[in-house]
């Protein structure tokens, strides 16, 4: 009984968290690369797009999995969240569509058509990232009405763009060389500043919005342990700042900025998850208001069998396409 009533929803909340985190990190870097396009030369743009070409399809699948779990495991919350976020979701989808097809179109187009798709690739990446930030901003305030809350959501939107730019730039540091890599080091620092702002804002705002969250954060002595999270985030940020200041970067350290950026995202996500748990919609819908155990069990079996396989072949694909991105993608 305890296993089905408490354990199953918990397992799905965890799975959903993993899927969303995987999405934010993975699609985060390719959206970030998309937003950096206007700052690069045409030759660099080709290398940038080629560095994410083999991966973006699979990266976006994590979004489908995340929203899929929300849909199938927490249908009541799914309806509330997606209807409350209706317009930013629609904007995000339009953005994802434009950039998704722009991958293909820009590769095949010539002349001003190519310019148009390059622009749409940038615009779509930006629109999707910004909309996701707005969704996050609205979500953590519990969809509270009022101009102030909307302004807050817009700020989080801008901050998430910065976060994705950071992911994209650190990805490019690892996957490119020469002038483009140098540029990426500078881009990463700009992104990092925005991330600092965003993380600080969200950390301040979340306890202010909800009594529940406040009680959790200011509950001594647990709070002292909790302070490890911001401390570690700060440490990762400082490390990243120092790394991106080294020019040229040591050949063996090229992946380090990326992993620092991932660490920042993971830590921020953990803080957020701690704040919100056990709610799916803060103070309104808990994770125990899940689907029926019969349906959950069927899906859990599938997920546990298949997810290791998905991980395995994703690792395989990343191994196949390791190394520096070249200008021409098709062999």
């Amino acid at each position, binding site marked *: 009984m305890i296993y089905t009533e408490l354990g199953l929803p918990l397992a799905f909340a965890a799975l959903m968290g993993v899927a969303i985190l995987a999405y934010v990190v993975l699609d985060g870097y390719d959206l970030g690369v998309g937003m950096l396009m206007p700052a690069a030369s045409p030759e660099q743009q080709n290398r940038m797009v080629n560095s994410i070409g083999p991966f973006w399809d699979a990266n976006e699948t994590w979004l489908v999995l995340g929203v899929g779990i929300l849909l199938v495991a927490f249908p009541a919350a799914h309806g509330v969240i997606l209807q409350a976020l209706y317009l930013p979701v629609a904007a995000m989808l339009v953005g994802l569509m434009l950039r998704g097809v722009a991958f293909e179109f820009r590769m095949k187009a010539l002349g001003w058509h190519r310019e148009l798709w390059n622009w749409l690739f940038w615009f779509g990446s930006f629109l999707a990232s910004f909309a996701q930030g707005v969704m996050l901003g609205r979500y953590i305030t519990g969809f509270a009405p009022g101009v102030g809350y909307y302004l807050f959501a817009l700020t989080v939107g801008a901050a998430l763009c910065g976060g994705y730019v950071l992911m994209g730039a650190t990805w490019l540091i690892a996957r490119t060389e020469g002038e483009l890599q140098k540029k990426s080091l500078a881009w990463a620092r700009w992104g990092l500043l925005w991330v600092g702002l965003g993380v600080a804002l969200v950390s301040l705002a979340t306890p202010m919005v909800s009594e529940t969250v406040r009680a959790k954060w200011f509950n001594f002595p647990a709070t002292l342990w909790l302070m490890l999270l911001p401390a570690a985030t700060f440490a990762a940020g400082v490390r990243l700042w120092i790394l991106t200041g080294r020019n040229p970067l040591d050949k063996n350290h090229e992946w380090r900025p990326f992993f620092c950026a991932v660490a920042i995202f993971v830590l921020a996500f953990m803080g957020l998850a701690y704040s919100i748990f056990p709610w799916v919609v803060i103070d309104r819908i808990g994770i125990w208001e899940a689907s029926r155990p019969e349906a959950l069990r069927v899906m859990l079996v599938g997920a546990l069998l298949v997810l290791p396989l998905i991980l395995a072949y994703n690792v395989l*694909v990343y191994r196949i396409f390791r190394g520096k991105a070249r200008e021409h993608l098709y062999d």
Partner: protein
Amino acid sequence: MDGSDILLLARAQFGLNVAFHILFPSLTIGLAWFLVYFRAQYARTGAAEWLDVYKVWTKVFALSFAMGVVSGITMSFQFGTNWPGFMLKVGNIAGPLLAYEVLTAFFLEASFLGVMLFGMSRVPPWLHMASTCIVAVGTTLSAFWILALNSWMQTPAGHVAAPDGALIAGSWLGVIWNPSFPYRMSHMLLASGLTASFVLAGLSAWRLLKAPGDGAATRSLRTALVVAAVLAPLQAFVGDLHGLNTLEHQPAKIAALEAIWTTEKGVPLTLVGIPNEKTNSTDYAIKLPKLGSLVLAHDADAEIQGLDRFPDHPPVAPVFFAFRAMVGVGMLMIAMAWFSLFIVYKTKAFPRFLLWGLAGFTFSGWIATLSGWLVTEIGRQPWLVYGILRTADATGNAVTGAQLGASLTGYLLTYALMFLAYLVVLTHLAGKGSQ
């Protein structure tokens, strides 16, 4: 704005999205298997032309796949935004089917597509061949789960009601292998094979018009024609079986699509006409006596239930016309495939009039598939899940008409732009071939 307007907008938006989405899977499921064949031919013969065919069509595949992915992601969100009532009532059944689609198929396709597209020089040939196969298996598996859900919505089976009124699966085998599933699945896979054959044939013909004798286009055209000639008549046969199945499980749909107003024995077959729901008759009808019963029940004197038996029947005119469009285009496709083979056999060449004809038939599969989809989905109305949940009861109340209108406009513009660009790139790719 009242509830009925919201329902209309929600339906318009979802319908637009699904109609747009279905174009791409219906092409890629079939095309993926063609690519397996092309890749295998290259591995077997080592001929550069087969590699050219493979490369050109992987590009078309990648493009179409991307269009399918992005419109599919949109759909996964619209389930919640447009039809929250659907998930509350049948989420315990629809949810796992959708989840299995993502877990077993979507990740597989998306991951190995990268290897297939960009990995030829990076992986050993066997792994590249395997990736091509995995992508094909993935697309078909995807269709399996989606059609299982769609068929269940048409002919629900295997479920029981939980105490709170929501449905849960009593038997998953019963849910998946519901009465219409085997027919719908075969019908859709054949439709996809045909759509891909005619796109292949049409664009290869286009290439041959520009570059007569092109080795790659000759090979793809020949392959496509043979496959089309086999699949097109087979589809007519499977479609007939599907019809018998529908007559048994959804007689109201059959009554609407044949515009049979009153229940009688030995009903005539209405070839064309304009169904009029005000007078409960078909204006300007051309009818063939007894043929309706013969076609529908394979017995000239069989009694067919008319619309008078079903107070809850779907709107007659749309399904009547869509059905005629589907069957009409399907017949033309059979004729075109066999005529082409005959000409090629006789002349041992591809005469230009034939190439022009085939180019004209490029998107015939899309027209037939879309019409068929309209028949089956509108034919299920007013139900969303047949006999269980009405479409009107599945809309939400938190999204306003203004929001729906604004997003509908955004989707429309985006789709129009994407579709235009898709067609431009497709003809461009086809025209320049493997150069």
